[in-house]
């Protein structure tokens, strides 16, 4: 087990270095001079241009810039945003919980609905339930999620008026952010109705973001369960007279868990991509929207740090999923 852990960690280092290089290189290749863009029509005198370039460190040789960048990272300094002039890491840490909260709820939604649906579909294979579920799942991941989000807004916020259009919580509620998770902070604030409002605002974005993972998880669970249900040892357990629930719940499911966990882990990367689109549509103040704004503003430090931090987060989530997978799959453990 330790050996497995060690090997997994060892891969992290070169990947991390690679990520820093990519993030650094990409941003240097972005067209658009940030100093000129900042000055706008007003223009900037040559002396001031030099001064600002020096201030941002753009006038030094590229490997020096890279070295400073790397050194800065290990000290927790991810650069300063050109437009807000505040440390990028601060903005990231403020906005990141919003994206995490949304992603967690979307994952929960996808798992809590997808896994049981997949199991049931597998158990009742060929039935109308199976066909409808799988058909819906197929439609689910064939749909562009930004379109789904827009439609949900039209229907539920526009026509029916059941859900709010944007934001994380009603303006009426005001409490200082403790964790950055609106739901937790709402509970901590003790204000009546705050939690409901936060959940109410989470509804549509969660469904939008969680639809594709839901569809994939449902399908994967079903096929994993089918494979397992057809296996010898299940038939043996059945013939031994064990109740169907035990058979399904304990034996079959536990083994079907492996591919399911893998799929959930894979969906995290997908979810980050989906978060960008979802946050744009619902004006959800998270990382996705932040990155898009930064790219269009040519806010180099933000794009650079954002790419890096997001990739690192995904890397750690993958690591975690791998470890989980190692725990569940005894064959890996004893390698």
């Amino acid at each position: 087990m330790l050996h497995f852990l060690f090997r997994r960690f060892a891969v992290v280092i070169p990947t991390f270095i690679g990520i820093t290089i990519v993030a650094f290189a990409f941003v240097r290749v972005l067209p658009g001079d940030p100093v000129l863009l900042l000055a706008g029509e007003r223009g900037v005198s040559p002396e001031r241009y030099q001064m600002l370039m020096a201030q941002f460190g753009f006038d030094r040789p590229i490997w020096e810039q890279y070295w400073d960048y790397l050194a800065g990272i290990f000290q927790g300094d991810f650069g300063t945003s050109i437009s807000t002039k505040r440390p990028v890491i601060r903005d990231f840490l403020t906005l990141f919980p919003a994206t995490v909260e949304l992603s967690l709820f979307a994952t929960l939604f996808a798992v809590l609905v997808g896994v049981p649906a997949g199991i049931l579909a597998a158990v009742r294979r060929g039935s109308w339930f199976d066909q409808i579920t799988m058909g819906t799942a197929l439609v689910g991941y064939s749909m562009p999620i930004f379109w789904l989000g827009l439609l949900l807004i039209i229907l539920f916020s526009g026509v029916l008026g059941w859900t709010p259009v944007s934001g994380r919580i009603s303006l009426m509620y005001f409490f200082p952010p403790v964790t950055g998770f609106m739901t937790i902070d709402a509970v901590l604030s003790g204000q009546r109705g705050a939690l409901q409002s936060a959940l109410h605002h989470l509804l549509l974005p969660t469904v939008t973001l969680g639809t594709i993972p839901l569809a994939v998880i449902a399908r994967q669970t079903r096929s994993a369960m089918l494979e397992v249900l057809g296996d010898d040892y299940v038939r043996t357990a059945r013939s031994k007279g064990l109740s169907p629930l035990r058979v399904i719940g304990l034996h079959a499911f536990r083994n079907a868990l492996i591919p399911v966990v893998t799929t959930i882990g894979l969906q995290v990367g997908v979810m980050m991509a989906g978060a960008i689109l979802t946050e744009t549509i619902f004006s959800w103040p998270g990382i996705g929207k932040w990155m898009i704004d930064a790219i269009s503003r040519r806010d180099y430090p933000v794009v650079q740090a954002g790419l890096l931090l997001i990739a690192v987060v995904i890397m750690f989530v993958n690591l975690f999923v791998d470890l989980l997978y190692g725990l569940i799959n005894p064959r890996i453990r004893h390698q």
Partner: protein
Amino acid sequence: MTERAPAATDTLSPRGAMLREFWYYFSMNRGAVIGLVVFIGLVVTALVAPLIAPHSPIQQYRDALLVPPSWAGGRPEFFLGTDPVGRDIFSRLIHGARFSMLIGTVVVIISLTTGIILGLLAGYFRGWVDTVLMRVMDLILAFPSLLLALVLVAILGPGLINTMIAIALVLQPHFVRLTRSAVLGEMGKEYVISSKVAGAGHVRQMFRTILPNCLAPLIVQATLSFSSAILDAAALGFLGLGAQPPTPEWGTMLAEARQFILRAWWVVTFPGLAILITVLAINLVGDGLRDALDPKLKRS
């Protein structure tokens, strides 16, 4: 007992027999067949778009701004209504099919070609070539695909061609990995070793000997990538970085329509529906292909 004349099928080459067997399994899957029919319909639409579209996709009718579909209070000449600048949505959707088909095809060709070459190199030669290539692929996979594509398009500049390049790059690692693992699986087999003993060169070995046996999963991945490409291109178009207006690409149409989601639902609904139907059809075909090409993996 009558002598039965040898039927044509008795003398089919192994390839032909494989094809027949494949079609047999494929056609058993109703959904896959429907998907194929729809897909073929879309390809045909894309090819003859200028002939069947009632209006020009970029013609602005100044007197017909935001007209609802003809069956919902609109005008008969605009079947699905018009957009905020007065262009017929139905015609734009039809022309949009060309772009979607183009995007899917180009992206798949690029990813498939480079993916196969790199995967073959990695799996065949092993050693440092393999390590380097796989690390690079891991690196690409470390970033969320849409974000990476976004930054690439920001670097290259917005537009259809750059969108296709960016998406092809992002989808690449899947092909490389797939080819590599298939190659690794085949490498130990007898036919490979015997062909090596017979003196076959590297290139011949890679392409003539090994590759044909790895095709099945690659074909399935290609269909998946086709639909991913369309979805990703639409996403980039939606974010304003893909095809630029007035190009009638479905995602770009949604970006322009976003302001009107509450006032003119048809401007938002139909382009999305077009994307959905296209991607759904391809995914159905993909499922069918997967089941047919490797019966061992059949799930239903």
